[in-house]
């Protein structure tokens, strides 16, 4: 059934922002959404991070491309060493 189709997007580099302030950069990221009801999860490897800004809210996961950027709001963000896991929030 169409409403059970999941989604996986992978990328090389991305950034996390607190408004216009850069929180950090990540590499080897994967966005997984198992169903339309699933808000989605991002896993990535942390390259740089400002730990104070990472504790602020709201945060956005930003992937730049040739014609602009894709932006996903983050509901939560966890970092353990160089490993990042984030749960996506609702799209604006």
């Amino acid at each position, binding site marked *: 059934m169409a409403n059970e189709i999941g989604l996986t997007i992978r990328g090389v580099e991305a*950034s996390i922002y*607190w*408004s*216009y*302030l*850069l929180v950090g950069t990540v590499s080897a990221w994967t966005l997984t959404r198992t169903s339309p009801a699933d808000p989605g999860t991002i896993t990535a490897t942390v390259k740089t991070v400002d730990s104070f800004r990472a504790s602020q809210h709201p945060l956005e996961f*930003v992937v*730049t491309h040739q014609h602009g*950027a894709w932006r996903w709001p983050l509901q939560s963000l966890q970092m353990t060493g160089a490993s990042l896991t984030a749960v996506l929030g609702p799209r604006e």
Partner: protein
Amino acid sequence: MGRDRIVEPETTRLFISDGDFIDVKKRLNHGESEEYYARISPFQIPGQPVRMDTRQIRTSKVLSYLLGWSLTQKGQPIPMSPDMPENARQAVLNSLDKSTFLEVFTAIDKHEDKVDAEDTALKNGKGDGKESPAISPSPVAVAGDTSGSEVSTDTSMTSSLTN
């Protein structure tokens, strides 16, 4: 209870001529202010009079505040984003016509003065903390500054450096 001490990264839209606008930071935090002063006064030695790079005074203030805009060239958006490297952002600013740059600078300078006044009033217990409308400089106000020199247009910055 004390007042908030962290600068939240808020943005404000300022309108300039011909329906164009610029998006700017509402206020700079300590780190952004230090970067601004370092750009305009890279040669400062403790105990010595401040020596400023006068070519950078207005451009540095714009670089510190500007986040984006609606400006176009031949129907295409002129890129301006905090994601861009600083030298690329500066190169775009340097390519603007003089009157457009002056409009952008004047709008930001007035915005900074307004926010500084609000902050001072709040600290003195005179403000209500509510935001007043974004500044939209009139064409007359913008054109009125066209005779100003690079150094003399930024008196508020100079006074804050010497205080």
